């Protein structure tokens, strides 16, 4: 019979081996209980639903934000300065009699704070100009 001494074991391996085993058994005793049917009640549906509604609201938020930004840009674009004839340039031009707008389409920024405009049959009356002029009629 082959001698078991051909196998080596770590030093003092068998010392207190029985105590170690008993300790392990004691330590492995399950002391933590759970409420009845706890594991059966763990619902994946709630987790999935929660995640899906979170994704939904996140997407809704992103879409709404983008839409809002686009709306703001659109509004500012509409109310912003258009490439119309600058009224200062127009007035100066009129004063210097350097203009010839007869027969041409004249677009004037109607939202300018400094001037009011009235269009009567191709006559455009600009009023509230600078201090020296009450109005100018452009025909």
């Amino acid at each position, binding site marked *: 019979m082959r001698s078991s001494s051909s196998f080596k074991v770590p030093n003092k391996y068998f010392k207190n081996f029985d105590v170690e085993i008993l300790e392990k058994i004691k330590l492995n005793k*399950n*002391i*933590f209980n*759970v409420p009845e049917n706890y*594991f059966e009640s763990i619902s994946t549906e709630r987790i999935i639903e929660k995640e899906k509604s979170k994704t939904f609201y996140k997407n809704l938020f992103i879409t709404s934000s983008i839409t809002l930004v686009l709306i703001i840009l659109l509004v500012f674009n509409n109310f912003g300065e258009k490439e119309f004839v600058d009224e200062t340039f127009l007035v100066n031009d009129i004063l210097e009699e350097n203009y010839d707008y007869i027969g041409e389409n004249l677009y004037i920024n109607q939202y300018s704070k400094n001037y009011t405009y009235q269009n009567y049959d191709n006559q455009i009356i600009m009023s509230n100009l600078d201090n020296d002029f009450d109005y100018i009629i452009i025909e």
Partner: protein
Amino acid sequence: MKQKKSVVVSALEKELIKKLKNSKSKDSAFRELVNQSKKNLYFQIRRLLLDHEDTNDILQNVYIKIYRSIQKFKEESKLSTWMYRIAYNESINFLKSKEKKYLFSSDVMYNTMINNLREDPYFDGDELDIKLQAIIAKLPPKQKVVFQMKYYDDLKFKEISEILGTSVGALKTSYHLAKNKIKKEISDNQTF
């Protein structure tokens, strides 16, 4: 160039991971995953947190994280190892935030947790078990977790190393220190 770790996983696990990463089969695969893993994860968390209600909250958070992050799972470890890591991180983060309520005094926090065990209807242990839990609770965090994973969960050091991101050598040292500390406390209390 970092070599991708190769992990030996069963065909069943590979199939499950594939389903989890597919948006069409994700939900049903997730249900399967939860059914397979809920008890193991629950007790892993419970041994750290001791209280059932806290464990329930963290377990829910862990599964939410798993559901959310499964696409990012690189398959460099087993699925169970990855899930354990999430559970461990969530539990430790919870304990850290709980410690803040005790003005960073972990001793006071653990003493309170151990005292609460006596009143806990879901704790089925005697005074001896309470003392044992008190000894384990007061171990330094790494020693405590290594001890629990090795002794209760029977994980190999290599697996624990993947979960905690610590070398096997360091884990063996932590485990050895934890075991000796527990043995000493136990024999000082003449529990065996």
